[in-house]
């Protein structure tokens, strides 16, 4: 272990915040597993073997978007463009009904949309209140800071007014999307139409102040530098010091298909694991680190559980944003599958709700043993 890594370990153990230089050194350290082991130490101190997941559904109600972010394969500029869609409220509500009717209940809906120039504010409030009518206890994690900021400008409201109105309609928390990379150099190139870093942070600051929890993200593996990644995480950490409102950090790997950055290769497995480990060490004040399997792939997400991650997101259904960018993962995992992946990684599965209240763990989840060891019995041949 190098001197730098030893000093970082001491800081990590004593809870002292790491510096920008420390973060860069962790990215540059040649031995991936040493960095991983350090992150794992922090992860196990915070959560032991516990690994969280929930049962959720994604709704992307429209992909019509005024902005043209370079990495986005999901959005279409105009309602009539090829592949453009906007769900009617009935259609969107139908997603939840189908899940309930299918005997596959959920505890959370994750809603993220394009910046549609034509939809009225009512569309969004009705969307939320309608979902709550169908399942009053459902947790609605909806609208990125980018959307909230867009609503404020478009409908002439303050950020706080937007949030309060949405909350009145059923909003429970904010997802962490739209953060991308905070550095202006990068934003200018990949998402010039989006709100600035300060505006993004301000939305979350206000949300936290009025009592909403939220998540935060970072889109990595495109044109940003290592320093810019570390800087991004440190800005999130600074806001967290101020408000304490972030629950989870979710690093998002850039997917190159079908967008303006197609020539870039996208990050590889070791770069993904490295980013998870660095994030766990830098963001000591954000409790959870989510390996979003939809975008990492199930295999890498499982491996990330040893590189700092303690959350696998949820069962998810209907994911569109990453699949339109070439993600080849399945669109849904059954709870038993998620449990199996966690158990096979040597971790302890915990079903949570959005706010990390424990819904089930231990024998309640693992009692039907996911696989059997008896060779002969296990050889059921279907032919």
């Amino acid at each position: 272990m190098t001197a730098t890594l030893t000093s970082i370990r001491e800081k990590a153990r004593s809870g002292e915040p790491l510096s920008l230089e420390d973060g860069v050194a962790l990215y540059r350290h040649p031995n991936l597993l040493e960095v991983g082991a350090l992150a794992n130490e922090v992860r196990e101190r915070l959560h032991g073997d516990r690994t969280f997941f929930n049962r959720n559904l994604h709704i992307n109600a429209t992909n019509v978007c005024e902005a043209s972010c370079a990495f986005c394969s999901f959005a279409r500029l105009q309602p009539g463009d090829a592949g453009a869609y906007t769900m009617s409220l009935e259609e969107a509500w139908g997603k939840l009904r189908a899940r309930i009717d299918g005997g596959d209940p959920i505890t959370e809906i994750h809603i993220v949309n394009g910046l549609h120039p034509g939809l009225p504010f009512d569309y969004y409030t009705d969307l939320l209140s309608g979902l709550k009518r169908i399942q009053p206890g459902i947790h609605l994690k909806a609208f990125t800071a980018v959307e909230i900021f867009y609503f404020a400008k478009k409908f002439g409201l303050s950020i706080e007014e937007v949030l309060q109105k949405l909350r009145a309609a059923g909003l429970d928390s904010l997802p962490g999307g739209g953060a991308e990379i905070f550095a202006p150099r990068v934003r200018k190139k990949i998402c010039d139409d989006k709100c600035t870093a300060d505006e993004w942070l301000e939305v979350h600051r206000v949300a936290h102040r009025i009592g909403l929890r939220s998540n935060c993200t970072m889109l990595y593996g495109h044109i940003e530098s290592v320093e810019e990644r570390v800087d991004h995480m440190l800005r999130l950490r600074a806001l967290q010091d101020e408000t304490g409102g972030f629950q989870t950090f979710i690093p998002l790997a850039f997917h190159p298909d079908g967008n303006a950055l197609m020539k870039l290769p996208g990050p590889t497995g070791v770069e993904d694991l490295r980013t998870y480990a660095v994030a766990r060490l830098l963001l000591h004040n954000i409790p959870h680190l989510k390996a979003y399997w939809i975008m990492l792939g199930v295999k890498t997400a499982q491996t990330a559980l040893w590189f700092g991650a303690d959350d696998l997101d949820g069962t998810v259904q209907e994911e569109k944003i990453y699949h339109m960018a070439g993600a080849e993962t399945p669109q849904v995992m059954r709870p038993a599958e998620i449990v199996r992946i966690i158990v096979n990684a040597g971790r302890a599965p915990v079903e949570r709700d959005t706010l990390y209240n424990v819904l089930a763990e231990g024998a309640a989840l693992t009692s039907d043993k996911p696989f059997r060891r008896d060779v002969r019995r296990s050889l059921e041949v279907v032919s």
Partner: protein
Amino acid sequence: MSSKKIRIAAVSFLNARPITYGLERSCDAANDDRFELSFDLPSRCAERLAAGEIDLGLVPTAAYATSAHELRIVPGIAIAGFGSVRTVLLVGEVPWTEMREIALDGASRSSAMLLQLLCRERGLEPRFREVPHAQVLDAVRGTTGALVIGDAGFAAATRFPHVQDLGAAWHETTGLPFVYAVWAGRPDVVDGEAVARLQASLDDGLAARPLIARAWSEAHGGDPALYESYLTHSIRYRLGAEELSGMAAFFARAHGAGLIPRAIRPRLFEGAAPTSALANRSRGGMEGPRSVDALLADAAAGGRLSPEDAMRVYLEAPALELGAAADQRRQMLHPDGVVTYIIDRNVNYTNVCVTRCKFCNFYRPPTHKTEGYVLSRDELARKFQETVDLGGVQILLQGGLNPNLPLTWYEDLFRWMKASFPLAIHGLSPEEVRYIAEIENMSIRAVVERLIAAGLDSIPGGGAEILDDEIRHAISPLKCTTDTWLEVMRQAHALGLRTTATMVFGFGEEPRHLVGHLEKLRALQDQTAGFTAFICWPFQAEGTRLKLHDDTTAMRYLRIFALSRLYLDNFPGLQVSWPTMGPEVGQVGLRFGGNDFGSAMIEENVVSQAGAVFKLGAADIERYIRAAGFEPRRRNMRYERLAAA
């Protein structure tokens, strides 16, 4: 073996002292009833062997390659170097490329041939002139350089402005060790007991290196510390899998350069099961149980894991600590940070198969009316030509067990392939070899001999699944037994072929089955050193008739992979399986002990019909390797590195 004495000629150069150290003492001490030991120059040892004056000689590898007799090599012992050796130097007043003439030391055959080979491969054509050992250095003047061997190299290294270590040059070109000399004799002269004595002699000599260095310095002058470091760090005395690959590569290249008439394969004495130097390092049962940390640290440093220890490591070690130990071991074995890959093509010549393995959705029974195939020469020719066009160097040729294909079909195919395409044939898994022997009513050995004569270059390690008959019986009742699989490999190694070994897990087996599998491979490797690399992957259940619900996730793969790196201490290579695990996990495997990324082209019906869909080209593979912090290099089947195309 008769009680007739074995007449041995050895060499008295410094680097040979550890090899004969124990022998000298026992032959001196009593009138030894088995050995009669004499000393000579290396080239003379070879001549006396040829003349029948001795039974066993410490001979230059070049002499082994050019011997008119069929010679066998004593397993486990060599004078070899991995990179710079400090005693085989090309020196001169001008750089290598400007030398018009090079004086050669007549005492050294292997080094001279190595120099000639390296010159030819670099397009250099100096004149070579043999001069007596004592006059080599005096010959250096102007554009005349000299090949200095032996102790003179220590002094010469600082005397001339231009010095090239040939061991280092060979390593840079091939990535393999170079073997300078081996114990060789005619096939029937040495038995297991004699091999054990020769190995014991080396073991004594290795332990006595400080003494040897001091004695040499007293007799010949010079710094004993320098000698000791030379014997400890510059010379490798083990003849392991990599050294055998190095020898085979040397012979193949020398043949390609027209320096030797045939590209022979290094062949070992058979029936001489040695206890390897490594096996001796395994700890006795005296100590109490040790912590998993201690086991990991020991294995990471090259110590041998017992099966019981391996089970504990597998079950108890935290994932990243297991991975880090394997990474450290990989770093020891492949310190230059290179990860290799090959460009080859998998061709499944027939899908007709009588075996009906439950996990296989590729085969069609011989009675199937429409879907059974045997690829025609036209189809094969197209596939082979495409492979050549894409820079491929090898065909992985495997198929079902087709009762309609006699041995002559394979012989014709191989001869035609060899005559028409510059491709190595990595073909016919043990299962197929066994089946050909069965339908031809021949011995396995006779079949392998004929296949080699027809052009077979190496055997893939497929069909091993789990080497445990209980499991094998459950998943593929008609497939060969564990013993047969190992026997085919043993015979192939004995005939000088190199092979790979595989393991497929996820059949509901227990840790003891996995460790048992690794143990069987390691034990055979101790005897033959014929395995080049190990590859494992989880059973791909999708689309097959087997529904097992076993753990085939990435974390289990990485754990088993890392354990394999630690357990298989005598395997040089560990290949990650990106076609089954995906490139991301394959890449992470490079940090869990892997040093090879496998193949850049995939047409492997047996796996791909079961749902593995990944495809990577050479550029992608290189990107993944670099992103993991390694330097990519292409290789061939011997794990010999090739110049980038």
